[in-house]
């Protein structure tokens, strides 16, 4: 008989067989036409869709084309016997999970073991009764269905994973481009104006940071400078910070309050950036430097990370107790003033650097930062800042910071 002969469903033998038959396709691989026809008729009567192949090679072709739910394969066949056919099936990525019943006239344990070892799932005796054939076929089809469901679920999971990976990659690209935008708003390093140089190092905890800073000319004689620190970190903090950064642009301040006077800038910022419903807020330090006289006026809204590092005197923190933005709508911010000297350095830093914690939980602390810059007075400004980062990383025994870490340094020429 030619291979692939198709026998359609006959009268259903029973309800469960009928249920199986509604979807089940069985491939018979046997070189003996009489045995094959007998089994095919039996299975057809049970309600299955039956495909036939007269040797292993044809069996593999039909299996690849039709993906049957179950295969019943004779052990003894010329060219490719049953166990060899099973091995070929298991090597094929498309067919390897197929359920195979090996049909044999023998039931010796050694033979059964060999058949199982070479890829068969179960055995069917050629002398099996109608009831046994029905039971083994039903059991095989149940297993086959479970395997296929698992494959489908696995494939759905894989495709969901691919989708998630794609989305994540898109989000990371978006974050990177937002980070690039924010980075482009940070001041350029090098010579600022008339003997004042600028260097900084910034390591956000994530791609996009929430601690930002700015240094920009207000007019021909004044420089405006600030550092802001958003509570928390991550994308939400970064977005809020970018908003405040835009608000703090010199042209915006001149338009809103007519100057860059630190206490007025803070008053206006405090009015416009209240504590959020989640308890998020900013600390902000603002300074205004009159370049010809080196006179610095400054005010702080809860930001305590600004250190004056004079060339010839001990360094000191330029801060006093003050409320962060949004803590108290009625806050008034005091402005202090000092005159910088040649070779003085001013460091603006975010708390991410001095709150870097050791493995035992002890923060690096402002005084260790102060020590680090004191010992580096003779080093170039950028090297001093790098040294601080190195020391903080050494303290926390890891390279990445858990919060945004920024150190900005200004140096007056000798």
């Amino acid at each position, binding site marked *: 008989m030619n291979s692939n002969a198709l026998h359609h469903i006959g009268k259903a033998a029973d309800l469960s067989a009928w249920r199986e038959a509604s979807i089940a396709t069985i491939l018979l691989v046997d070189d003996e036409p009489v045995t094959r026809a007998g089994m095919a008729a039996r299975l057809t009567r049970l309600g299955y869709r039956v495909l036939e192949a007269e040797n292993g090679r044809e069996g593999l072709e039909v299996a690849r084309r039709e993906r049957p739910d179950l295969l019943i394969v004779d052990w003894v066949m010329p060219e490719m016997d049953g166990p060899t056919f099973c091995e070929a099936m298991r090597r094929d990525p498309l067919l390897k999970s197929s359920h195979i019943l090996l049909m044999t006239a023998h039931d010796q344990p050694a033979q059964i073991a060999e058949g199982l070892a070479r890829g068969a799932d179960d055995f069917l005796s050629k002398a099996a009764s109608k009831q046994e054939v029905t039971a083994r076929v039903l059991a095989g089809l149940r297993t086959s269905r479970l395997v296929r469901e698992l494959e489908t679920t696995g494939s759905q999971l894989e495709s969901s994973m691919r989708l998630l990976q794609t989305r994540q990659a898109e989000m990371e690209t978006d974050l990177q481009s937002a980070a690039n935008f924010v980075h482009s708003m940070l001041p350029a390093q090098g010579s600022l104006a008339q003997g004042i140089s600028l260097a900084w190092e910034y390591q956000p905890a994530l791609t996009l940071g929430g601690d930002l800073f700015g240094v920009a000319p207000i007019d021909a004689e004044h420089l405006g400078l600030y550092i802001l*620190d958003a*509570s*928390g*970190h991550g994308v939400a903090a970064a977005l809020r910070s970018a908003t405040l950064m835009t608000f703090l642009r010199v042209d915006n301040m001149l338009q809103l309050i007519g100057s860059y006077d630190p206490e007025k800038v803070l008053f206006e910022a405090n009015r416009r950036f209240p*504590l959020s*419903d*989640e*308890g*998020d*807020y900013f*600390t902000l330090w603002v300074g205004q430097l009159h370049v010809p006289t080196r006179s610095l006026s400054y005010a702080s809204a*809860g930001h*305590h990370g600004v250190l004056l590092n004079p060339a010839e005197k001990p360094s000191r923190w330029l*801060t006093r*107790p*003050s*409320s*962060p933005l949004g*803590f*108290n709508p009625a806050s008034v911010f005091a402005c202090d003033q000092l005159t910088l000297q040649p070779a003085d350095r001013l460091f603006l830093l975010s*708390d991410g650097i001095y*709150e870097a*914690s050791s493995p035992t*939980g002890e*923060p690096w602390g402002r005084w260790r930062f102060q020590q680090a810059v004191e010992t580096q007075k003779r080093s170039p400004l950028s090297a001093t800042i790098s040294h601080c980062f190195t020391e903080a990383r050494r303290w926390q025994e890891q390279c990445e910071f858990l*919060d945004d870490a920024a150190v900005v340094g200004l140096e007056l020429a000798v």
Partner: protein
Amino acid sequence: MEIKERAVPHGTILDVVGDLTYANRAAFKAAVDNVKQTGCRHLIVNMEQVRFVDSAGLGLLVLVSQNFKQLQAQVSILKPQSYVREIMSLANIPKMIPIYESEEDALIARAA
């Protein structure tokens, strides 16, 4: 971070153990919400066992204090460690949230 709730006359004490930080904010907020739902008029945050408060932790304390004030209730802080006290002082927290050295002082001050 571990937080235990204790009822005291006319108030509730939250005994906080661990760091009050960005990473622990959800647990702290949940504990405060529980207390708020009881209609508590005086929440005392016992910070004796809190070693570190970061900027997010400070923001939460202020937010909780503002929310309680809106309900005509009060938040007090109890026995902060020196480092935490310094951080809070620099941010002017004592001007917004009273700090006490003993439960009795906190309860008397509220009653007065």
